[in-house]
């Protein structure tokens, strides 16, 4: 008689390779929301300036870059206002790095919770990415404010219709960061070596992305490396949209980046599904 009965849950040792249980994640959407809230709220608890830190961080970074790279080292910014140029770069880059960095610790950081209670594991990295998006939006507003201020002070800026791509860029960066982060996280459960690699890996990654140097300043082999970097078209398009830097490459490159992101994300889900079943035994 039990054959005809309906089971709410069937657990088997091996599952299909690709399963993205969206229904289950939807059922736990409240948890997703709570995690996002926890991330945002807890970050600036017991600070005086509180959420103001969201603004202070990018301003200080851009300011440092302006002084060191712009004024002392005198690096080119394609004749655009230096501060805005660096602010554009760091706002985007920080968002991506944040997504990658925090999702890459998914399994290790949450081992305590994961070991005791079940919920769809993907909730955890997803929530981190959503809080990063929120953080980005706040910082993006700061960027817009600075941009508007400079635009009306007759700076050399040519905002254009590439701006329509901005939401798509945000999505791309989020998914790419999530995908790469999940892959790293899945491997670190067993091999902790990656954990040491990831933090300075992200920094090195930044130097082959046109965050500080504009794309036009890279030459020869370095140029090829930078062009192969899927983050390059995103940052370039972002800058092109607001500042109006040379943009012939940017749009074509976005196709490459989109394809790369899709492949990485599929691979990530695949690996994640494999690892989440048994990671408690190896973590």
């Amino acid at each position, binding site marked *: 008689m039990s054959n005809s009965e309906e089971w709410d849950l069937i657990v088997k*040792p091996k599952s299909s390779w690709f399963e993205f249980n969206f229904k289950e994640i939807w059922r736990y959407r409240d948890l997703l929301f709570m995690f996002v809230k926890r991330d945002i709220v807890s970050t600036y608890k017991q600070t005086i300036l509180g959420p103001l830190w969201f603004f202070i961080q990018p301003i200080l970074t851009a300011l440092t870059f302006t002084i060191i790279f712009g004024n002392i080292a005198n690096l080119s910014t394609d004749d655009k206002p230096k501060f805005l140029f660096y602010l554009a770069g760091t706002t985007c880059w920080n968002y991506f790095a944040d997504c990658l960095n925090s999702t890459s610790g998914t399994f290790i950081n949450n081992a305590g919770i994961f070991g005791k209670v079940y919920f769809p594991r993907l909730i955890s990295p997803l929530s981190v990415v959503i809080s990063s998006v929120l953080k980005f939006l706040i910082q993006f507003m700061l960027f817009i404010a600075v941009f508007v201020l400079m635009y009306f002070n007759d700076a050399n800026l040519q905002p254009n219709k590439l701006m329509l791509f901005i939401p798509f860029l945000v999505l791309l960066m989020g998914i790419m960061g999530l995908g790469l982060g999940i892959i790293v996280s899945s491997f670190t459960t067993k091999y902790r070596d990656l954990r040491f690699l990831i933090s300075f890996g992200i920094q090195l990654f930044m130097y082959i992305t046109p965050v500080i140097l504009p794309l036009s300043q890279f030459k020869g082999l370095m140029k090829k490396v930078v062009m192969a970097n899927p983050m390059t078209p995103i940052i370039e398009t972002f800058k092109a949209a607001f500042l109006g830097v040379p943009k012939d490459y940017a749009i074509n490159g976005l196709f490459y980046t989109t394809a790369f992101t899709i492949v990485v994300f599929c691979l990530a889900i695949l690996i994640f599904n494999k690892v989440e079943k048994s990671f408690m035994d190896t973590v």
Partner: protein
Amino acid sequence: MRNTVIKVENLGKQYRLGDIGTGTISHDLNRWWARVRGKEDPFLKLGEVNDRTQKGISDFVWALKDVSFDVNQGDVLGIIGKNGAGKSTLLKILSRTTSPTTGSYKVKGRIASLLEVGTGFHPELSGRENIFLNGAILGMTKSEIKSKFDEIVDFSGVERYIDTPVKRYSSGMYVRLAFAVAAHLEPEILIVDEVLAVGDQEFQDKCLGKMKDVSQQGRTVLFVSHNIGAVKNLCNKGLYLRNGTMADIGSVETVLQSYSMDMEKKFLSKDLTTREDRKGDGSILVKNIEIVNGFGQQTDTLNAGDKFSLKINTAKIKNFNNDHFYAALIIRDGFGDRLTTISSDFSKTKISLKDENEITFDIEKCPFSTGVYSVSVLLWSEANIIDDLENAFSFKVIENDYYGNGVSQGANIDRFFMDYKCYAK
């Protein structure tokens, strides 16, 4: 006929022993290569029965193997077994925190476990925020938590601190709040792991009380415990795990019986002079321990209420700088819980050292109820421990007629008896 809510089929879980590090990659590659060729996982063939005490040949063990059982709705299933028998592994698999290596199981309804009390509490967040966070982690929706919020705060008794970060809570308040959330989960199936119920007596009672409530509401409970009394009281079904395999399943009485029978085997009498696992300086050796009943006969079986004597025979091996020593017997129940100690020190009995000593403890009425009891012996002098032997001797109590009126008392639930006088006006 009642519904089956959990159906477990041939469940198995294999663990790799030792460190993960060098060699893991080669194992992983080996496995992968075998899979590519469509062959069986080479390491699944290895692995042996999980016996902690014996050194194995393989690096892989089965923490759980071929476990199959059904649980009906409303059952309270007590899972018993020694440490390392696979109880917690089974619960982990059922609560989906790890997946089985082989086999499968099916579940109807929501599973929640009281082993995750306080999971995911964030120290920086207030009690209020943590109730929502923790509730969501345990699988409640926001509206569910909202509707039970006042009840949870009431139950926890920390209302005054509800907007204070939980890092400022005392550990007691922390646990109370955490438990209050878990207790209001109202799952169809509840898992309780006693090992993790680390709180004080009040908290443990609350846990057990909650379990009773849940089972009375016709919901299903899985209960892991070493406390045989609690299992007997609360459960109607039992599952006995031994070294990762199912030793027995059925009604709680029969399962407990087969469990304690196994425990008896452990205590089969041994020749004490050949025991190697003794501690102490060895100047005196415990040769023998025996029980003599009220009729002067040597025995290992008693009834509750019987008069009996415990006798220790010792032999002097070498002299030491004292002319007397002390002796004590420590009595434990079949599950290793220490019950009581009788000592020549307590009774101010002087034992003068001779070539052979006989020390006798007379017990007027055996206070223990049905079960197996082990006796450990300890000899010492002012200076140091002379001989210390764990589980030197065991005896059984088989009948609970403590008051000698021909009626067995306590229906195997009470653990000990005492003398009393009763008055009525």
